[in-house]
Structures are given as structure tokens and as C-alpha cells.
């Protein structure tokens, strides 16, 4: 069992997901991005691809892309623990340690 106390899996999965999307989309759309800085191209391609994937999907028509299949669907759709964990790890990053923390005042307890 992984006993890491703050999981970094979310970041890793998200980077992997965005990387896969860029690779799959770039070849056919490259002419639209000539002259743009590489980092801007990556961001733009990812946003366009994601928008297209989400737009295609609807509550009655889940997306075909297996990368998005676990993510998009009616709110509260039926999911297994594995699918719910995949959704969580792909879409959330661990928050940084709080810059300050205050204990509960004793007279409130």
C-alpha cells in the first residue's frame, strides 16, 4: 500500500494526459499555429482538443475518447471505485502545505 501522505499522482496523470492529447492532435492542426511560441501552441492545442471532446459529449452521448470516458458524463453518474479514483487523480492536484495553521481555540471545545 502506498503510504505517501500527500499524493502527487494527480499531477503526474494530468501531465501524461495533456501530453497524450497534444501528440494526438498536433499533426493535423499544426498549420494553424505557425509562428506561435511552442508553449503557447501546447496550451492552445490542449484547450482546443479538450473543448472539442467535451462539446462532443453530452449526458446522452458519452465521449468516444477513452481518455475522457471516465471524466465526462451526467453529474453523479454511476462509477466504480477505480473510475472515481481515476477521475480524482486526473483532475485534482494536491494543495500545497498551508502557509499557516491555527489550532482550535480551547474555549470553543
Amino acid at each position, binding site marked *: 500500500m502506498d503510504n505517501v501522505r500527500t499524493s502527487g499522482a494527480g499531477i503526474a496523470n494530468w501531465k501524461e494526459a495533456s501530453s497524450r492529447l497534444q501528440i494526438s492532435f498536433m499533426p493535423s492542426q499544426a498549420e494553424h499555429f505557425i509562428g506561435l511560441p511552442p508553449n503557447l501552441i501546447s496550451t492552445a492545442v490542449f484547450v482546443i482538443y479538450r473543448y472539442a471532446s467535451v462539446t462532443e459529449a453530452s449526458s446522452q452521448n458519452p465521449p468516444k475518447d477513452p481518455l475522457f470516458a471516465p471524466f465526462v458524463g451526467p453529474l453523479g453518474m454511476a462509477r466504480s*471505485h477505480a473510475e472515481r479514483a481515476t477521475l480524482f487523480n486526473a483532475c485534482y492536484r494536491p494543495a500545497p502545505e498551508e502557509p499557516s*495553521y491555527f489550532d482550535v481555540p480551547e474555549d470553543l*471545545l
Partner: protein
Amino acid sequence: MSIITSPASEYFQGDIFADVPFAYVRSLDFVQPSDAARTKFTATPLPATGNKAHVVAPCSRSMGMLVTHECIIDKGGRAPWSFARIVRISVEGAEGQQAIRTGTNYQAFHLPKTAGILDEESYVDFRLITAVDPALARDLIRIASLSTEGRASLKQQLILYWTRVEPGV
């Protein structure tokens, strides 16, 4: 493979404990400690706003899941540990049981029957949460933890329950 495992070496959100006290305030019956030999407490008027007294409340002891994040626990101090009650799934009808298994019942987190740990298929009810003093909580018996996948699934279901939103569309 079950999302329920033997207890991890450290406390984690999602850990399962035996005999957690679950109190529920049903009335404003306040009492104060008594010096009388036969009565430990005597009735007292409602305390003024901001003041404290003991309240008489029904309290059961049953299996519960730690929903406080381990980050709070690591910090120590006085912060209470919050537990959500674990309930046998058989208390629900067939339709309710299926909704719990698939997570479409937002307030519930499904726990599969797990040999040696959980004798019956159950669920965590996020509506039944109680706060326990950390010193008392550390004395409770911890019987299981969640796998990494189970903890991620729990966090997603907590987000859905508390906010009614999920990422994606």
C-alpha cells in the same frame, strides 16, 4: 481487489475504527455536574450564548470512518477528529443498495465485504458525522485503512457530497 486493507502504519483519511461514539443532539436538555452522591448531573438552564454546559444526547457506538485529513492529525493540537458512521447496506432496499454501490447516492461511500475486516457489505454515511476529542480518538481501535485507490475514490465522493460538483464538463 478490495479497497479495504489492513491498517497503514500511520493515520490516514479513510481509516476505519471500531466503536466510535456517535452523538446526536435531539433536544436542548442541559445539565451540570453534581456533588450529590446518587446523581452525577443535575438539570440546568440553557447556557447563555457563547457559554458551555453539558447536553443530554443519545450516543451510539459503532464502526466509523475517519474523514478528517491526515494533515490535520499530523499537526496535533486540539482539533477534533471527525468520523462518519458506517452502516450495513442491508438497511436499505434493493434500489438504495444499488445506488450506494455505484456512487449515485451522493451521501454514501460503498464498502465491500472484506474477509477478516468487514463481515458485511456496508457504506459510510456522510450525513452522520461526529467530532471526537483527539486524545479519545487515538484510543479508539483502528481496524482498517483504504488502499491508495480507495482513498482517491473517497476524496472524489466527498467532493461530490459537499459541493454537488464534479470535474469534466
